C-alpha cells in the first residue's frame, strides 16, 4: 500500500473508544419470530464464489432454506442439507462415516469447490455432533484441494444474521498472517453486494487508501491477511464474534456508524479516513460528489416520510442503524426499535444518535410486541415475512425487513434506494383505491 499519509501511530492521536450513552433496554424473552442463522447462507453462498455450505441437519433445515429463499432461484445452489435420518440417530449408522460419504459425493459432483463449510443446526447441536472434528478429518483427507471449516447456524444459538457472524468468525483463524512490519492496512468486514464493494474500493482509492481488503473475499484463496497492523471497519453491525476473533489476531477496530444513508456512509468513511490520517481536503474531494448525490436522492423521499412514525420488529440486527437513518436522514418519528441482540460497543455511534424517548428492545415476545405495535398504530411497521400480511390486514403499513438484508443498501449510491424501500409501502397505500 502506497503511504501518502502518516501512519496512524505517527499521528500521535491514540484512538479513544467511543462509549455508549446509558439508556434503558427492554429485554424480552418469549416467542421469537426470527429466522435462524442458517438463513445467512442465502447470501454467503453467492458472495464466496467457490465455497459450498453443507448444513448437517433435518428436513426442517432444508425446508427453511427453500422457503426463505423465495424458493429455488438457482437450479443447483452452492448449499445443500445432509438430512439426518432415524438410523443415524438410533446409532445404526456411524454419523461421521455417513457425513464423510455425503461430503465425498458432494465434492465429486462439484469439483470447482475450494472451501466447504459444515454448518451445524439445532438437531446436530443437540445431539452434540462434533463438526469441528469432522472438518479437521475431512480437511486432511481433501487437502490441498478443498479446505473444510465448520460453524453453527443453529436456531438455539444464532438468529438470522448471526449466521454470517459465525461463518466469518470461523474463517478468521485461517486468514494468512500479515507480514512482519507490514504497513497499516484497512480491512472492511461483512458481506456486501459486489457493486457496493466496488464503490467503496473506488472511494478509498481516491482517499489514497489503495489496498483495502474485504472479508469475506469473493474467492476462498483470496481472503485478506490479518495482524496487529490491520485496522478493521465493520460494514455490518451483527459481527460480534468476528470482531472478537479479529482482535484475538491483533487487529484493531475502527468504531464508526454503519454505512447506511448519506450521513451514515459519510461517518463510516470518515472514521476510516481519520484512522489513516487522510487529510480533510482529500477526504472532502473524494466524498463530495457522491455525498451530494445521496442527499439529493434521500431528500426526494424525505418529503413523504418526514414526521411519519415507525416501529421496527427485531430481525437482522440492522435495526439500530436503520432507525438512525430513518430518524436523522428521513425525519421519521421512532416508536420502538427491536433487535434480536444488542451489541452496544459495535453500535455506539448509531445508538447514541437515537432520541432518548425511543424504546430500544432486545430479544422478543412476539405476542406482547404485537400488542405494543397495535396500540401505537405506527405509520410504518418494519417486520418479518410471517407478520407483514396479517398486520396489513389490520390496517398497518409494513415493510418486510428481509428486503433490507437481501438488497444492496449500503453506501452513498444506494441511499436513495434505501429510502425508497421505506417510502414504497406508503406510496402504494396512497395509490390504491380498491
Amino acid at each position, binding site marked *: 500500500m502506497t503511504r501518502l499519509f502518516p501512519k496512524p501511530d505517527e499521528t500521535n492521536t491514540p484512538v479513544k473508544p467511543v462509549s455508549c450513552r446509558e439508556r434503558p433496554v427492554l429485554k424480552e424473552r*418469549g*416467542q*421469537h*419470530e*426470527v*429466522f*435462524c*442463522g*442458517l*438463513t445467512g447462507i442465502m447470501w454467503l453462498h453467492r458472495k464466496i464464489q467457490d465455497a459450498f455450505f453443507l448444513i448437517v441437519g*433435518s*428436513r*426442517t433445515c*432444508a*425446508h*427453511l432454506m*427453500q*422457503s*426463505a429463499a423465495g*424458493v*429455488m432461484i438457482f*437450479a*443447483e*445452489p452452492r448449499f*445443500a*442439507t*445432509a*438430512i*439426518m*435420518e*432415524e438410523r*443415524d*440417530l438410533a446409532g445404526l*449408522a456411524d*454419523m461421521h462415516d*455417513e*457425513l464423510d*460419504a*455425503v461430503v465425498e*459425493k*458432494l465434492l465429486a459432483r462439484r469439483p470447482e469447490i475450494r472451501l466447504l463449510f459444515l454448518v451445524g443446526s*439445532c*438437531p446436530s*447441536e*443437540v*445431539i452434540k455432533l462434533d463438526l469441528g472434528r469432522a472438518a479437521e478429518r475431512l480437511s486432511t483427507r481433501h487437502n490441498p484441494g478443498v479446505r473444510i471449516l465448520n460453524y453453527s447456524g*443453529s*436456531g*438455539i*444459538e444464532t*438468529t438470522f444474521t448471526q449466521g454470517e457472524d459465525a461463518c466469518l468468525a470461523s474463517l478468521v483463524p485461517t486468514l494468512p498472517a500479515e507480514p512482519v512490519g507490514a504497513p497499516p492496512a484497512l480491512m472492511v468486514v461483512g458481506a456486501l453486494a459486489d457493486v457496493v464493494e466496488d464503490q467503496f474500493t473506488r472511494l478509498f482509492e481516491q482517499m489514497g487508501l489503495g489496498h483495502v481488503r474485504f472479508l469475506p473475499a469473493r474467492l476462498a484463496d483470496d481472503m485478506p491477511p490479518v495482524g496487529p497492523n490491520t485496522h478493521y471497519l465493520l460494514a455490518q453491525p451483527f459481527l460480534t464474534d468476528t470482531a472478537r476473533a479479529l482482535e484475538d489476531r491483533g487487529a484493531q477496530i475502527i468504531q464508526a456508524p454503519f454505512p447506511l444513508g448519506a450521513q451514515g456512509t459519510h461517518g463510516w468513511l470518515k472514521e476510516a479516513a481519520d484512522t489513516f490520517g487522510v487529510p480533510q481536503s482529500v477526504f472532502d474531494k473524494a466524498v463530495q460528489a457522491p455525498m451530494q448525490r445521496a442527499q439529493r436522492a434521500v431528500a426526494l423521499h424525505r418529503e413523504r416520510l418526514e414526521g411519519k412514525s415507525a416501529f421496527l420488529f427485531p430481525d437482522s440486527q440492522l435495526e439500530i442503524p436503520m432507525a438512525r437513518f430513518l430518524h436523522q436522514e428521513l425525519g421519521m418519528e421512532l416508536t420502538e426499535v427491536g433487535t434480536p441482540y444488542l451489541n452496544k460497543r459495535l453500535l455506539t455511534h448509531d445508538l447514541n444518535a437515537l432520541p432518548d424517548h425511543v424504546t430500544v428492545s432486545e430479544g422478543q415476545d412476539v*405476542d406482547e410486541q404485537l400488542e405494543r405495535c397495535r396500540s401505537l398504530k405506527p405509520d410504518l411497521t418494519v417486520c*418479518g*415475512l*410471517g*407478520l*407483514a*400480511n*396479517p398486520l396489513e*390486514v389490520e390496517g398497518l403499513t409494513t415493510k418486510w425487513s428481509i428486503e433490507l438484508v437481501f438488497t444492496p443498501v449500503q453506501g452513498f449510491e444506494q441511499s436513495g434506494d434505501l429510502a425508497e424501500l421505506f417510502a414504497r409501502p406508503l406510496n402504494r397505500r396512497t395509490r390504491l383505491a380498491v
Partner: protein
Amino acid sequence: MQLTVWTYEGPPHVGAMRVATAMTDVHYVLHAPQGDTYADLLFTMIERRKKRPPVTYTTFQARDLGADTSELFMDAARDAQKRFNPAAMIVGASCTGELIQDDPGGLSKTLGLPVPVIPLELPSYSKKENWGAAETFYQICRVIAPHGPDKQDHGVPVCNIIGPTALGFRHRDDVREIVGLLERLGITVNVVAPLDASAHDILALKQADFNVCLYPENGKIACDWLKRTFRQDYTKTVPIGVGATQDFVREVCALAGFDEAHAEAYLKEQESRLPWYSRSIDSTYLTGKRVFIFGDATHVIAAARVARFEMGYEVVGMGTYSREFARDVRDAAKTYGVEALITDDYLEVEAAVQALQPELVLGSQMERHIAKRLGMPCAVISSPVHVQDFPARYSPQMGFEGANVLFDTFVHPLTMGLEEHLLHMFRDDFEFNDEAGPSHLNHGGGHKKPEAETETTPASPTEDALIWAMDAEKELKKIPFFVRGKARRNTEKFAADQGLWEITMETLYEAKSHFSR
C-alpha cells in the same frame, strides 16, 4: 444421512400446521427452537393468508437445554390457552424438540387446561409433511369426534368432505367445486374438514352417511378410522379430469343410495368443454405429445389419466414423492407401459426428465425449475406450491370446471397447433424464424435460447466422437427447434448403436424412421 438440495415435502410438523391453520379455532403449541417460525411465512406469504398461523413456538435456546425446557413448554402452553382461548389445542415437537424428549403430551396433561388437548407424535426423522397432516387430522378426529351427538336420520343422503388443508394445491377452489357438485346431486354436505372447520364441526362428523376422501395424502388415515368407528364408507375416486369426475359421480351416487339412472341423468346434463376442445381439429397437434408427470400421488395418477385419455398425449414417464402411495402410482404407471419413479430426490427426477426428453412436463414447482433449466415446457399440477399456485381467479382442478382448467393448463405451455405449421413454413423468415418461441409465451425479444437440450444433455463418449456431415447438419436445422434436440439425440444414439462414425443425411432419415411412432 441423505444429501438434499431441495425437498418435496417439509417435516411432519409443517403438516400439522397445515391442519391447525386450516381450522378456525384450534391452536398448536410447538416445542421448537427459534427459526422454526419460518414456517409461518408459508401461510402468510405463499398462501397470502390474512392471519398468522395459530401456532405458538416455545423458542428454546442452547442455554435452556441444561436447565428446564419442559417448564418453558408448560408456560408457553398455559399462555397460549389464555391468550388465544382456542376450542382445542394440539401439542407436539419439531425435529429438535423431539430430540430433547420433553413429552409435550404428558406435560400438557399435568397442566389441566380447560380445553381438549391433543398430543401429537410426529417422528421428524422418518416421516414427512403430508403424513404429518394426515396423522394430525386423524388424531383430532379420534379425540373429538366420538363426543358428538348420535347420528340422526336426515331424510337425505349426507356426506363429509375430508382432506383439504391450508397450503394445499387449489384446495380452496376444489372444495367449492365439489360441494356444488354434491349439492346438485341432492347430497347434503355436512362438514368439510379440516379446511375452515371448527372443533365443533368435528363433533358433527358422525352425522354423515359417508365421506368424500378428497385428498388421500391428507385424509385417508382419518377416513379409514371413520369407517372403522362410525361405519362411514368413503370414496376412492378423486374427481380430477372428465372421466374421473364421472366415475366419482357414479361412486357417490352409489354411496348415497341413489339408483344408476340418477347419476346418468346428472352426467348427461353436465357440460365440460374438455371433450369437445380435445376433439376439435386444432388439438390434432397434441396427438402423442410425450409427457412426463411427477408430483404427489393423487395429482399424478389423475394427470396421467387426463393426459393419456382426455388429451391424447403419451405418458413416457411418471412418478411420485409420496412413498405412502407408491403402490397406487406403480399400478397406474403399468396402464401406460412405464415404470413409476418413486423418489424424493429431485436430482433423480431431473435425470429422468433429461433422459426421457419429454415434450411437456407436468409436475410441481420443482419440476418447473427442472424444465426451465432444460428448456422444456412445463405446467404445475401438484404441491410443492409457490405463490403463483394460489391464483386470484377461481381455478379448481376437480369436477367439470376443473377439467376445463386442466385442458388449458396442459395446452398453454405448448406451441399452438396452427402456430406450429406457421413456424415450420416461415422458418427461414428473418422475423418469423424458428428460434422464436410460442407467441403466447413471452420470452422477451422472441429469441429463445436455441438448442438448450443439446447443451444440457451430456453425451456419452461414443456419441461424443460422432461426426455430423455438413448436409446432415444442415438438414437437422430444418427441423423445428422444439424437437431438434431430440432429433439430434435420437440420431446420435441410432448412429452409435449402428456403429457408425459419421452421420450423413441418410443416417438422419434412417434414424427418423427407426424412432417414428
